[in-house]
């Protein structure tokens, strides 16, 4: 009887120590859920969700502090994917939240730019090049369309221009065709 108890408690001790060590050894650096949520967010870093960037918003969602319907650039599809990931119900974009807009990029009117560098400091992805008293310009390929540079500009020389559809990014539309009505009616 005593031997059995000793063996069992000994085993428990050994396994406990192994588990404890393993927990320290393989400790997850960051919450993996945050990365999964962050991967779905559009990375515009626009702050329209009320958080200073996509990663903080992902963290807030993972802690259950923020709703999944606060990201206008992600749109309906983003909400759907977040709902899938988190096993939540799909909700429409939150109240007071801007509605999803067509993707656009910032364009600086170079005639009006005074080279104040305020937009450079506002850009969350360093997509504006320029220096003090030098003309600034937006690297269109890197601009996420967050609009954060528009407000700080003292001469209102930044406009958001919607990306026109061209051949390189045109998509095939969902097929729409006539269903034979009479057939459906007779079947139904």
């Amino acid at each position, binding site marked *: 009887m005593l031997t059995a108890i000793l063996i069992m408690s000994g085993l428990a001790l050994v396994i406990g120590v192994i588990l404890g060590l393993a927990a320290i050894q393989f400790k997850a650096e960051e919450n993996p859920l945050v990365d999964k949520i*962050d991967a779905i*967010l*559009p*990375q*515009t*870093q626009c702050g329209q969700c009320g958080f200073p*960037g*996509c*990663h903080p918003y992902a963290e807030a969602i993972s802690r259950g502090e923020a709703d999944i319907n606060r990201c206008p650039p992600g749109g309906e599809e983003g909400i759907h994917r977040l709902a899938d990931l988190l096993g939540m119900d799909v909700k429409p974009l939150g109240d007071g939240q801007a509605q999803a807009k067509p993707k656009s990029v910032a364009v600086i009117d170079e005639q009006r730019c005074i080279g104040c560098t305020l937009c450079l400091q506002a850009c*969350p*992805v*360093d*997509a504006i090049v320029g220096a003090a008293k030098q003309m600034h310009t937006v690297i269109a390929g*890197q601009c*996420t369309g967050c609009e954060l540079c528009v407000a700080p500009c003292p001469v209102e020389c930044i406009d958001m221009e919607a990306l026109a*559809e*061209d*051949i390189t*990014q*045109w*998509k*095939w*539309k*969902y*097929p729409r*065709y*006539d*269903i*034979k*009505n009479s*057939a459906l009616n007779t079947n139904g």
Partner: protein
Amino acid sequence: MRKLFTFHGGIHPPQHKALSTHVPITRAPLPSLLVVPLRQHIGAAAKLRVRPGDPILKGQRIGDADNAVSAAVHAPTSGRVVAVEPRPVAHPSGLPDTCVMIAPDGEERWIAHAPLDYSALPPSMVLDHLRDNGVVGLGGAVFPTHIKLNPGGGAIHTLVINGAECEPWITSDDMLMRERAAGIVRGIHIIRHLLEPTETVIGIEDNKPEAIAAMQAACDGHPIEVAAIPTLYPTGGEKQLIKVLTGKEVPSGGRAYQIGVICMNVATAYTIYRAIDHGEPVISRIVTITGNVQSPQNAEVLLGTPLKDLIALAGGALPGTQRYLMGGPMMGLELSATEIPVVKASNCFIAVSARHFPPPPPALPCIRCTRCASVCPVDLRPYELYWFARGNNFGKAQEYSLFDCIECGGCDYVCPSHIPLVQYYRFAKSEIWAQEKDKRAADKARQHHEFRQFRLEREKTEKAKKHAKATAGASSGDDKKAAIQAAVARAQAKKSAITPKNTDNLPPQAQEAIAAIDARRGQPRDASISPLSGADREEDTMKPAATHQETGEER
């Protein structure tokens, strides 16, 4: 006789090829305006190198290859560039794309061009020559040839030349083989020189006996085999033709060079011959004009010729023409206007009428009869793909190898419910591509944002460090005092080292006078007045007067 293999599925649509093969290749007349798109190949559009108003020669390069995957574009005739602007082009979207508009002068003056002695040059230079002459795959995919001929790594053991031309109505490759077999064989020699394959085989469907005979005659005495293959759509697909001729299957998601095979269209071989042996860039191609037109035919057409000129060449469209297709009826695309120009990919234009193309009956629900699966040349399950694409379940569609679909349209053709299946696959594919593109853009934005955060943090700590250092220096009072002392001492030493210079070069009398004055200054004021003092006073009183005079003059 070569042992032939079969691929899964395939269909036998009505051919309609004889319609356009009874007359030899004609030459289309020079149009009044050429519209040359800068994007005539897969990859990046060519980079414009002319400006409106520029005079231009036939064969002059108007666009450079702009990227690794790109090819040059040339002026099809001499004349003048009248504009560079977006124009409707042959694209399923119907959207405009940048085109160079050329007004021909009718003189057809060539730019200087010369044959290339390819055997004396390293392969890379030959490939660059092909790129700069705008050689791309003319079978339909318009993939830049210089990339295809540079597979890298593993050796190529089989060169397959594609003369199958399996799609109904199209006869441009057929006529090219009948009339210009020698040129094609010459092109094949150049490809063989570059790739050094152990065997070369030309695959031609057995519904083209004249072409087979012509090619056999031209290949006589050359190490090139001509294989007549059974007529079955889509034998002309690259992977299907390789399977038929070699029995090898290109792995899912892979490319032909990975199994040691390269496949080239006959028309591409012909343009390689023109580019190397004559130094002529790709500025024209053989185009079939058929369907509901007065006299269907094949014509050698300058790239950039608007479709309406071709319709006129074929005697005009007959009544009942509803629309125009570029390519065949199975894989072709509908054109939105007759102003759309001929491009490198244009092998055929079909005037569509209800007589030849009765409108499809309305679609019915899928009954899962699996006839689509039985004809699929890639051995997919089209009914499943349809289901997933329809439900926007793209991940699942990819699991079912959506991207191995060659969009041949065989499933559409046999579907008893007349469901436009390929449209669903195209929709799903472009959605997946767009999602992947967005994902890449998001990843890039995340990286930039993270780096920015890191940079701001770094700048902050650097600033803090600097500040800490500065305040640390000030806090020890003695050090500071000593530093100030040292600075004052340095300043004084510097000051004392400087002697007044304006008295150095005076005559001796003046120096004596100065010395005397200095000596007197040393004496107390109330001391006895020396006899010289009168003169001194006079000088003093005179000085202000002189200054007044000077200032007066200045005024």
